[in-house]
């Protein structure tokens, strides 16, 4: 018996140990090292901004709290920005400076408060005391969204936090909280119920104990929105939040919705509120002139009452109680105390916040769905601030162009495509528009110049011929058999990986077209639950009807045809079905019941059909619209008959997207609401990827086959690319155990493409390009800190070609080499020879990287190949030969000038005026001896002519021209004559034979 038990224990112990070992493959994302994310924006169409904060004394300083893109600081009044909150969740509710220490202390309440369907979630309250250098977390982990942070201007330890709370579920963490000890402890001062939170707060600037708070009863589901209820109210406290009273004297009758509250800084008795009420006539702007004791309705214009859940913000001019601005579709301004309004000037629609300049009310900043705008003339005209890459992608795709393009649709900013790299970097003008309204999925036809794009709810699906600039609208339409189609707001479209012209769309049915959308066939029954309780969108909105289509539900959301079988199609629905056909749509099986541990009706957000095996697929489920923030991802290897969860508790944030590696089936990428996660062991363990990658919501992942680049569509930070993930394929316990492990590399194509770089001098965002250099990649087991570690490139005969400085970090290191040698040693003259700064390229071939670390050496051979662009090999060889001839000649001339200088010195010392004169005359033909490097340029001499030709030939891509050769022969002759002249002069210089000169080789090493 005892023996049996022991055996049993052993049996149990082994798999656990094996598991533990496997789980150690990669820890905590600290080893990604130089594998850094690259942000290409765009900022041309920026993204939604939730909150603005302006420094009270320094007009240059402005903070932007983005809906999904973190916190950005400008120190130049909005011209340039830097992100200062990249280690934490990126959905921002409120940004507040401590009035006592505005240079250093900043509070960030996370979680956007404009509660649209695509809104993200926050992760609590944070504070920095050093202007964003370091952040401390002050709790509110379950707050989901924070509307306001108010700091007592007379006592920085007294802080109020208005928590709006959960949107999709009940939650207790709502209401007004107060700390009297600088955020160490918090007390909830005002709470109503689990469905009602703080929409807005204000503090009397002259009496910090007087506070106003609007409470809002609200709830969103995937299929409807409810704004308003008996618990919505405006409260006032005059005792620092101890007691609160409703201040509704003059308010509309019936239940209320979302209310904004603002206090006039110049007269704290003047208050404005904008009220969402039952009766349209009683909605709108109300004013109080007695600190809330009574209210008078002033205005119920469209702009004042439109979509309270999205635009409920009023801001009063800090210098005039009768000037106020209101968020809205266009935004509006009143200069008569709220009686009448006019629209603000042209800018991106959907204005969420506004601030006036601290010294000048002509200066207005506006936070919109399309970024930050700035007015210099009191709101008549606006200009966009171009340095905020906050774009909110729903999806991205790529093509096979070189450089490849990225395609995607944006929240309220249309559909776009643009290159991942562009001369001078990726700027606004590189992007092309392929759709209006809200953009979602954008797909490029594999072989034709055709792009598919759409606007919300498949109201239009466009097929754009980019060569002929022809646009055709092609969405599936009702038929007698299928008279009513339900499309998701983010309607799914998909291309077949097997047949280039095949195009799918999903309503509640799967639609297939074999001719790029000209004709459609319905190839499924209704694949959803078709639950009528979730189809009543006309009633959505609560007190303000809001049936935009954004709540359409019981629809197909994801479509994936297997790359290995054109008849095998997976379909996921927003109401939780995972349907499979293996016969091209003739029969369908709902496999979701086979998934254990998944709550029923959880949104099937993304299906990835494996490229390795027909029976394998991954499904990512997103339950956040039911208040379930758990990440869900499952794998099947048997066509959905059984499913295994591949999520561990290392994964933070609900998941939306997954990408399988094409080569290593255990390498998976997962996009969650809080960033990118990577597993090397098929989901046994996950590591967050944080190398230049903020924990931003990753809505879509695509792996580009030609480059192995992971392209991420983020909802708040634009397109982020992780260039060449191939090193991750090699990371195993074994390779990570080596002192230094070189990663394999495919041949580097030596880039011939030239450009004049970017021409932009405007302070717009510029995305860095993908490297075209040779990259030597290796894994270091531990950081190299003490002792020497060097790297050189050698040819296969062991000759040194270049010195490179190796990376020393623990983890992945990437060393770039522009496949050039050191620049030639150039003769010393009065000025620089600019041609001599050129480093010549090495020829294509095999090279060796040699790292010396202490006593150990590590070697890696790699290939350089020429670009396949029709340039004959002989031309390349001729170019190299001539370049190196001029390179050598340049160095020989340098050595000659060194000797001439020595003889000159000697002649002077020996007072040999005759030879001194001759030597001087010779030198003047060799190098310039007068002038400067700009407009005082001297007449070029041999050095300049030689170096300029060297540089011209070296920078070319093919054989030198006949003109180059003519010039070369001229230079060659001149140099030969100069050498002969010098040789003739040498013996005549008095004492010249006593000179000791270093030999040529040694001279080259001299600085």
């Amino acid at each position, binding site marked *: 018996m005892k023996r049996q038990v022991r055996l049993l224990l052993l049996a149990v112990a082994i798999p656990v140990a094996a598991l533990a070992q496997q789980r150690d493959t990669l820890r905590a994302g600290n080893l990604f090292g130089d594998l850094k994310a690259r942000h290409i924006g765009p900022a041309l169409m920026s993204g939604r901004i939730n909150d603005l904060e302006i420094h009270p004394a320094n007009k240059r300083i402005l903070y932007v709290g983005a809906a999904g893109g973190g916190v950005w600081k400008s120190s130049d009044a909005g011209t340039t920005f830097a992100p200062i909150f990249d280690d934490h969740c990126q959905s921002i509710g409120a940004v507040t400076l401590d009035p006592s220490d505005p240079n250093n202390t900043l509070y960030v309440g996370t979680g956007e408060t404009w509660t649209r369907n695509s809104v993200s979630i926050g992760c609590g309250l944070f504070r920095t005391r*050093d202007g964003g250098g370091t952040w401390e977390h002050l709790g509110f982990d379950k707050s989901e969204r924070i509307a306001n942070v108010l700091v007592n201007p007379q006592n920085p330890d007294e802080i109020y936090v208005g928590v709006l709370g959960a949107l999709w579920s009940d939650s207790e963490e709502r209401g007004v909280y107060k700390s009297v000890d600088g955020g160490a402890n918090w007390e909830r001062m005002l709470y109503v119920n689990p469905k009602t939170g703080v929409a807005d707060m204000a503090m009397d600037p002259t009496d910090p104990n007087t506070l106003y708070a609007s409470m809002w009863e609200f709830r969103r589901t995937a299929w409807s929105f409810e704004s308003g209820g008996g618990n919505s109210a405006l409260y006032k406290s005059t005792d620092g939040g101890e007691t609160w009273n409703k201040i509704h004297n003059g308010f509309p009758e019936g239940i209320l919705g979302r209310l904004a509250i603002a206090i006039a800084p110049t007269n704290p008795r003047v208050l404005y509120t904008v009220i969402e009420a039952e009766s349209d006539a009683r909605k709108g702007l109300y004013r109080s002139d007695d600190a809330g004791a009574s209210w008078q309705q002033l205005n119920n214009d469209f702009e004042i009452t439109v979509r309270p859940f999205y635009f409920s913000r009023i801001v009063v001019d800090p210098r005039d109680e009768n000037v106020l601005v209101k968020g809205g579709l266009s935004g509006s301004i009143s200069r008569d105390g709220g009686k009448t309004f006019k629209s603000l000037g042209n800018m991106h629609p959907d204005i969420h916040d506004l601030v006036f300049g601290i010294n000048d009310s002509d200066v207005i900043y506006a936070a919109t769905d399309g970024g930050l705008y700035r007015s210099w003339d009191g709101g008549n005209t606006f200009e966009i601030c171009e340095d905020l890459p906050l774009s909110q992608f729903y999806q991205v795709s790529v093509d096979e162009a070189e450089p490849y393009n990225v395609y995607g649709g944006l929240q309220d900013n249309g559909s776009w495509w643009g290159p991942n790299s562009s001369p001078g970097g990726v700027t606004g003008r590189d992007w092309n528009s392929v759709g209006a309204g809200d953009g979602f999925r954008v797909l490029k036809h594999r072989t034709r110049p055709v792009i598919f794009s759409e606007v919300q709810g498949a109201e239009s699906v466009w097929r754009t011929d980019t060569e002929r600039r022809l646009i055709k609208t092609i969405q599936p339409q009702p038929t007698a058999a299928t008279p009513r189609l339900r499309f998701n707001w983010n309607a799914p479209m998909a291309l077949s990986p097997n047949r280039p012209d095949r195009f799918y769309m999903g309503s509640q049915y799967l639609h297939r077209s074999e001719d790029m959308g000209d004709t459609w066939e319905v190839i499924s029954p209704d694949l959803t639950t078709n639950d009528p309780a979730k189809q009543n969108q006309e009633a959505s909105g609560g007190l303000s009807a809001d049936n935009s289509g954004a709540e359409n539900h019981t629809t197909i959301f994801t479509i994936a045809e297997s790359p290995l079988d054109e008849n095998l199609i997976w379909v996921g629905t927003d109401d939780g079905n995972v349907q499979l056909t293996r016969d091209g749509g003739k029969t369908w099986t709902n496999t979701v019941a086979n998934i254990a541990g998944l709550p029923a009706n959880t949104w099937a957000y993304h299906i990835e059909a494996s490229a390795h095996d027909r029976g394998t697929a991954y499904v990512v489920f997103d339950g956040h619209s039911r208040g379930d923030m758990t990440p869900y991802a499952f794998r099947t290897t048997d066509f959905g008959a059984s499913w295994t969860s591949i999520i561990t508790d290392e994964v933070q944030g609900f998941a939306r997207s997954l990408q399988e590696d094409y080569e290593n089936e255990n390498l998976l990428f997962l996009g969650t609401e809080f960033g990118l996660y990577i597993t090397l062991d098929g989901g046994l363990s996950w590591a967050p990827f944080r190398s230049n990658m903020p924990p931003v919501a990753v809505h879509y992942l695509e792996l580009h086959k030609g480059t192995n680049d992971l392209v991420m569509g983020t909802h708040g930070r634009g397109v982020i690319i992780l260039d060449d993930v191939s090193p991750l394929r090699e990371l195993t316990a074994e390779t990570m155990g080596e002192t230094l492990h070189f990663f394999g590399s495919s041949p580097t194509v030596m880039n011939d493409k030239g450009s004049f770089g970017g021409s932009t001098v405007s302070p717009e965002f510029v995305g860095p390009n993908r490297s075209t250099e040779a990259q030597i990649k290796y894994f270091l087991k531990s950081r190299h800190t*003490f002792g020497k570690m060097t790297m050189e490139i050698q040819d296969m005969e062991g000759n040194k070609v270049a*010195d490179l400085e190796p990376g*020393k*970090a623990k983890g992945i290191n990437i060393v770039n080499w522009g496949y050039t040698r050191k*620049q030639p040693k150039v003769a010393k003259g009065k000025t620089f020879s600019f041609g001599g700064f050129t480093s010549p390229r090495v020829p294509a071939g095999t090279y060796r990287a040699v790292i010396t670390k202490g006593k150990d050496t590590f070697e890696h051979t790699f290939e350089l190949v020429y670009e396949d662009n029709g340039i004959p090999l002989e031309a390349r060889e001729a170019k190299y030969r001539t370049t190196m001839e001029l390179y050598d000649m340049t160095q020989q001339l340098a050595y000659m000038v060194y000797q001439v200088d020595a003889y000159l010195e000697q002649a002077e010392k020996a007072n040999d005026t005759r030879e001194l004169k001759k030597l001087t005359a010779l030198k003047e033909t060799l190098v310039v001896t007068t002038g400067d*490097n700009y407009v005082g340029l001297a007449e070029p001499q041999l050095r300049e002519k030689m170096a300029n030709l060297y540089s011209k030939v070296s920078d070319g891509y093919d054989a030198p021209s006949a003109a180059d050769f003519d010039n070369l022969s001229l230079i060659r002759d001149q140099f030969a004559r100069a050498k002969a002249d010098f040789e003739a002069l040498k013996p005549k210089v008095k004492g010249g034979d006593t000179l000791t000169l270093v030999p040529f080789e040694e001279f080259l090493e001299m600085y």
Partner: protein
Amino acid sequence: MRRIIYAFTALALLSGLPMQAQTADEILGSYFENIGGKDNLKAVKGIRMTARLNQQGMEIPLEIYQFSDGRQMTVIKIQGKELKQGVFDGETLWSTNFMTMKAEKSDGETTANVKLNSNDFPDSFLDYKEKGYTVELIGKETVEGTETFKIKLVKEPLTIDGQPVEDVSYYYFDAENFVPIAVESELHMGPMKGQTQFSTMSDYQEVDGLYFPFSMTQGIKNGPSQPIVFDSIELNPTLDAAAFAFPEEVGETTND
């Protein structure tokens, strides 16, 4: 170097416990001890470093001088010519203009800000309290794949466009051997204003009993960086004071 690591291993073994919570001063104490001792460091009056900068394939040799009285100078050697940059004689900061090859003074604010660093030789952390600096241990952070202590150093406030600005930098001390492996600070002026400057240090080697990093990278955090490799470091070099003086007209500096 080996001695240091041994000492640490022994310490860790003796205590038999994970590393205890450290204070900033303890970390700095270990740092000074490991790089050769405070007294030895204080005895250094000047330093000369020869280095190579690699800028997009172009190698640029440099010579850097720093002295305990704040004098400093970087000599760039290009095509046999020597160009002085960032020369500070204690009062005047100047550089050679690359177009005219003539000396030009830096703007008054930059000069004043550099002058504030006169007391930072050879190490900002040395007697930091006497200098009125503050040091704070922020916590542990992984940098370069390695666990580090993040220490915040606040020096005399800078003046930027007429306004006082706190001079803050963050040092990342390797938690194993207590030497800094990275430093970051915000750029306060110029077109990169608001971005974070990030440097790394490695290849610590001994020079007359003191350890110095012989390899550094400098750049923008998460952006491109340039390596600087030091070929030699000489302590207490001699240099003619005239070399620091602002020349009314610098046509050409000779290499004698």
